[in-house]
């Protein structure tokens, strides 16, 4: 009985093996053209769905990064174009060339990986697509405007960014139309531009940009003071203006240009002098 069962099992095994061997030999002995055709047809059924899915996934992942690079390039070009126009305007009102026209530097695209808000600060954790030689106070912008500045560096790829909605935030700003200077501070859900004289020309709808003046900080280890936030990043738009009779400054309410609640890609602005180093650390694009 044992022998019969053993033989039956063995016969089944051998038949399976024989079938597989015959199939293999048939495939091997096909003419080369037919073999390639058969392989191609089989691949369409057996492996093509996997490769299609995998390539699609790769493309989707790469699209995110490519999109971030393209956005940074577009933002750079827009900022340079705005700086050119501003230089022209400064020249027309004889303010240049003592006043810098605006953005000069390098935008590093970063993805927002975390958001944290508390009563003292609202922070974003950002991850750069490449290693960055960054430092605290570097400005961070989105495509629509100024967002905040680098607060805490975690490593060469990650850092925490303090948003300008944080209660203690203050930023030197300028009215783009008139070149009037002021200081922008958060006020609840809106922003106020302070230190603008009551008789100055400010209208609702005026674009507010960074002035680059009120933020000159000492470099590390006693290095010379330098400007970290360049002039010209859009900060917001004047929403309402009033001149109370008992005050010497205007009360200007502004709406931010950038969204602080939904950001996928943001850009850290590296100073121009660091661009070559940034290129080295980043390995270029």
């Amino acid at each position, binding site marked *: 009985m044992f022998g019969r069962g053993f033989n039956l099992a063995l016969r089944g095994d051998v038949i399976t093996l024989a079938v597989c061997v015959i199939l293999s030999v048939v495939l091997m002995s096909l003419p080369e053209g037919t073999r390639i055709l*058969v*392989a191609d047809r089989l691949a369409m059924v057996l492996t093509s769905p996997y490769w299609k899915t995998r390539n699609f996934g790769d493309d989707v992942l790469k699209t995110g990064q490519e999109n971030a690079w393209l956005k940074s390039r577009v933002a750079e070009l827009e900022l340079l174009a705005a700086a050119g126009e501003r230089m022209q305007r400064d020249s027309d009102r004889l303010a240049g060339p003592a006043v810098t026209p605006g953005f000069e530097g390098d935008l590093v695209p970063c993805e927002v990986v975390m958001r944290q808000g508390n009563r003292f600060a609202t922070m974003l954790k950002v991850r750069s697509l490449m290693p960055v030689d960054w430092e605290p106070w570097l400005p961070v912008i989105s495509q629509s405007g100024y967002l905040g500045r680098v607060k805490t560096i975690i490593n060469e790829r990650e850092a925490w960014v303090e948003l300008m909605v944080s209660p203690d935030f203050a930023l030197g700003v300028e009215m783009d139309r008139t070149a009037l200077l002021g200081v922008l501070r958060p006020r609840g859900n809106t922003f106020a531009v302070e230190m603008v004289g009551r008789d100055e020309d400010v209208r609702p709808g005026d674009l507010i940009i960074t002035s680059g003046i009120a933020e000159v900080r000492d470099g590390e280890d006693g290095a010379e003071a330098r400007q970290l936030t360049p002039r010209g990043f859009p900060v917001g738009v004047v929403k309402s203006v009033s001149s109370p009779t008992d005050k010497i400054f205007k009360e200007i309410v502004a709406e931010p240009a950038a969204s602080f609640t939904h950001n996928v890609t943001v850009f850290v602005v590296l100073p121009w002098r660091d661009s070559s180093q940034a290129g080295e650390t980043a390995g270029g694009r």
Partner: protein
Amino acid sequence: MRGFLRTTLIFLLTAFLGETVVAPLIDIKGIAPDFSVIALIILSLSAGPVSGTIGGFAVGLIQDLTQPALLGLRALCKCGVGFGVGTLRGRLVHGVPVVEATMIALAVLAHDLVFLLFQSRLIDESFLMPLLTRSVPVAIYSGLVGVPLLRLVELLGLLNPEE
């Protein structure tokens, strides 16, 4: 039925993830374990020679699709390995790492021996050099990596030495 499904799933996962994900990660100068053979041994030991033969043929055929000039060759080698290991499973000493590692290494070597023998005739490739410089290191590496995988499969209750 459930055991068969689990065995098939482990076989597919080991072969697929091993070859596409793990092997590139633990690759040492181009030498990586042959996870398809390891998976085939797992299948043959747990499900027997019929499953081993069919599984080996299927995996070999899928691998052959990337090299149409050799269509059918890996399928032939692997169905032979699957049949051999499946037939020998009742005579092997289970639970001894040296035995298992040797079995895996020999299976890889046998597979490569047949493969290179046919390949050298079919497309005039050399035989001895690839066998010594590629197959032997891969066989040793596969033996080392395969033993923990077999232990894992045994822990999952898929290897039944009593059978």
